[in-house]
């Protein structure tokens, strides 16, 4: 936090580690998308098969659904907090900053609980595809904008 609230000369010093962290964050977001795609999570049929079983008669247990919520809440929450904090001290338009943080947060919250909707509806895998795609896009844009703008010349806070 001191790193962030300190004046501009400190921001220069903060830029290299921040940018390297964001490289890893970008790789993480890409890996998440690849992992989900390989598990069939980017098609409605694949999502339905994962949560309801191949013939739709073996839905995942509540424990499995909550475990997914528990793990992803940490991942999304941590990433959004760090990226949101970096955007807060970067010369970025307040509208873009708010859109990336709140868009990402809402999409991620929807993605956390979408599996419950898929199981309850006995299908509707498109819901999870939409929430995951939205989350990944917001996260990727947030990471990209933070990478480009953190420590860049301009008004830092707004």
């Amino acid at each position: 936090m001191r790193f962030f609230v300190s004046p501009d000369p400190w921001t220069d010093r903060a830029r290299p580690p921040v940018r390297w962290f964001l490289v890893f964050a970008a790789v993480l977001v890409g890996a998440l998308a690849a992992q989900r795609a390989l598990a069939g999570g980017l098609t409605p049929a694949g999502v339905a098969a994962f949560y309801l079983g191949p013939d739709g008669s073996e839905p995942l247990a509540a424990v499995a659904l909550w475990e997914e919520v528990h793990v992803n809440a940490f991942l999304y929450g941590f990433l959004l907090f760090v990226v949101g904090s970096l955007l807060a001290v970067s010369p970025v338009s307040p509208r873009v900053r708010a859109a990336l943080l709140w868009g990402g947060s809402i999409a991620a919250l929807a993605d956390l609980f979408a599996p419950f909707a898929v199981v309850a509806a006995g299908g509707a895998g498109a819901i999870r595809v939409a929430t995951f795609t939205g989350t990944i896009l917001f996260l990727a844009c947030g990471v990209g904008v933070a990478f480009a703008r953190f420590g860049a010349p301009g008004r830092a806070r707004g």
Partner: protein
Amino acid sequence: MADARLVPFRAPAASFCAFLAIQAVSAAVLFALKLGGTPARVQEFYLGSEATFAAPKTIEGLLETAVPHLVAVPLVLFIAAHLVGFAGLLRRRVFGLLCGASFAAALAGVLASFAVRFVWPALSVVKLGAFLALEATLLAWIALLGLTFATPRRSTARASGATPAVTATPAHRSAR
């Protein structure tokens, strides 16, 4: 707000609080579904049960759960404590006690899993107590984060720019 320099971080902190609350709730649900709410059920979870055809937990299985928690829980607690500590909302002693209670409960919870399985099953009481203590401290951190970022600013003059307030930080003084 206790420190005007935290104003720009209000939105990320609110988002962090929301996800922290979901983590706490999902942890409670998972504990109730998997381990149950009594020491006897906790023992059964780790030692196995012929009645439910549940096998005893292996060291590999326990480590599979312990390792990610040893990374994630201290990191989350560190972030929450760091933000609250930076704002100076609590007295030093109270802050230290809350930090100690949080980290100790988290560590005791992880270690108690191994202790129940391999040392003494009656330590399931410790496992249960540690989990309840960690949940309580998480709720306390969420409430404190809410207070830190939601209360009115103490000084509007400091909110207009970070530089004057930064001069008060020891790290910045030593760098000059």
